[in-house]
């Protein structure tokens, strides 16, 4: 949509937009360019210079079974976090949409967890599931379940999935509730008169009408699980034990910042960028279609 009335002048708009462009240039485009450049070069062992090696870093990366493992692990993690947090949020939103007593209070009590930092959610879960200190962790051990996520990789993965999904429920809840409230009352009334109710009405009427919200949230949740959970995972397990909870972002951090392998870390960054660009493109294509149709 183009605006008919505009202000004249060229200097003023340039001055207004300059801060944003400078920030973008220095802290986004330049680093992204550097990442692409160093993903195509290799440092010599003495750090004296670098040579252009084309796509060799990428070839090495995908030939590395550890990297392929990390990709699969990240996909499993993202799928589990998204499914858990969206499923629970949808359940809560459907019932919070009912006209019951105290629903404003319920909403507030389900929205505030939005404020919890991913790294803090790790701390909260530690007090539940830590085998020595945690309430539930101790109980499990006392009842014959050998629960210790600092040794057992599968348990560690389960724990970071739970902590990550838990933190994201209220975000999804806000959107599902808004989606439910935007369904026209007339549609619900009509289906009620046709005798559709309960689970049947939800499955045939409500859920299909929520599809745009669900799809939007799916993309947001995948991006959240892939990137924003760094704090949760790093605080709880540092990616361990071994590599049991090492997602792609944790791996970039470990390889680049801890092990200083710049070529590989940059190639990994470029792969992640491609992933985000693909997800964003899918989302915008979809939203574009929605506003057009």
């Amino acid at each position, binding site marked *: 949509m183009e*605006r008919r009335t*505009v*202000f004249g002048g*060229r200097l*003023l*708009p*340039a001055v*207004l*937009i300059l*801060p*944003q*462009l400078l*920030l*973008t240039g*220095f*802290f*986004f485009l330049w*680093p*992204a360019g550097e*990442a692409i450049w160093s993903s195509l070069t290799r440092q010599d062992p003495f750090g004296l210079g670098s040579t252009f090696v084309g796509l060799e870093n990428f070839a090495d990366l995908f030939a590395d079974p550890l990297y392929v493992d990390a990709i699969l692990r990240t996909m499993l993690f993202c799928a589990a976090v998204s499914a858990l947090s969206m499923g629970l949020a949808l359940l*809560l939103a459907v*019932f919070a949409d*009912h006209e*019951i007593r105290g629903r404003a209070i*319920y909403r*507030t009590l*389900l*929205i505030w967890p939005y*404020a*919890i*930092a*991913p790294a*803090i959610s*790790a*701390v*909260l*879960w*530690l*007090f*539940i599931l830590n085998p020595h*200190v945690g309430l539930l962790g101790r109980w499990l051990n006392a009842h014959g379940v050998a629960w210790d996520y600092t040794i057992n990789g599968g348990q560690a993965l389960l724990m970071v999935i739970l902590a990550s999904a*838990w933190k994201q429920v209220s975000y999804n809840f806000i959107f599902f509730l808004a989606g439910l409230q935007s369904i026209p009352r007339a549609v619900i009334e009509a289906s009620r008169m046709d005798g559709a*109710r309960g689970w049947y009405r939800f499955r045939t009427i409500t859920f299909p009408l929520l599809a745009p919200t669900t799809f*939007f949230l799916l993309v947001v949740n995948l991006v959240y699980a892939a*990137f*924003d959970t*760094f*704090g949760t995972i*790093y*605080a709880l397990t540092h990616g361990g034990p071994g590599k049991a909870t090492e997602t792609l*972002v944790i791996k970039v*951090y470990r390889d*680049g*910042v801890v092990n200083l392998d710049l070529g590989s870390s940059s190639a990994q*960054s470029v792969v*992640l*960028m491609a992933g*985000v*660009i693909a997800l*964003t493109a899918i989302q915008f294509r979809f939203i574009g279609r929605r506003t057009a149709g």
Partner: protein
Amino acid sequence: MTHGRTDWLAHAILGCGVLLFALPVWLVVAGSTQESGAIARGGLSLLPGLDLSAYPRVLTQGSMGTAPVWHMLLVSGAMALAIAAGKIVVSILSAYAVVFFRFPFRRTAFWIIFLTLMLPVEVRIIPTYAVMADFGLINSFAGLTVPLIASATATLLFRQVFVAIPDELVEAARIDGAGPLRFLRDILLPVSAANIAALFVILFVYGWNQYLWPLLVATDPGLDTIVIGIVKMIGVETQTDWSAVMATAVLALLPPIVVVVLMQRWFVAGLTEGEK
């Protein structure tokens, strides 16, 4: 008739949901009043004690080698406010330029901003660090905040708001002799007040909750945010002062929760409008 039964079911499910979020937080509130040694021996309980001494202790002294908590809260607060205010100002100005002016490369500029949407910090850790080092911004408050101020989401949101403003309003302001800056100040800002409030909540929480970025650019303990500090505290394997960890967790949770709850109405409307 069937209403009674579904109401009962709704209360049960929503009640469980509320508990699922409230209990873990209640656990740290209760734990912060218990004795560290007892917690370490496995005596953590949901029943609070009466001992509030962990709070003044962590606030003034810190624990296990971290800065005092009051200082970390100050860094977090300053960081969250600087990021929220910075992002809002920068985005309003750039969205205003893109919507209300015609200038060469306007579309290019917009697309450059839009691109940043696809480049979260997490995917460009090392090169961004290198750029920061070139600018001498490592271990500085500017380094902690300025790179997080550029934001495509906020610019897109304000663009959406501004595009929806009727041409007649702009026309009327011009006939009254209002220049571009007066129009921005007297009409555009008041009209978008609700959006600004909503965005403030989202960005404050975003800034307060940062972990990876401060971990990367600020190794100086004097720049530790509360989130960084608490993760450091649980990283100590032996001799962890558990009641101090829990008191710190409570203090870290409080400010963003207060902001979200107090501004809930604007926040929810702004979030669901903005993202779509």
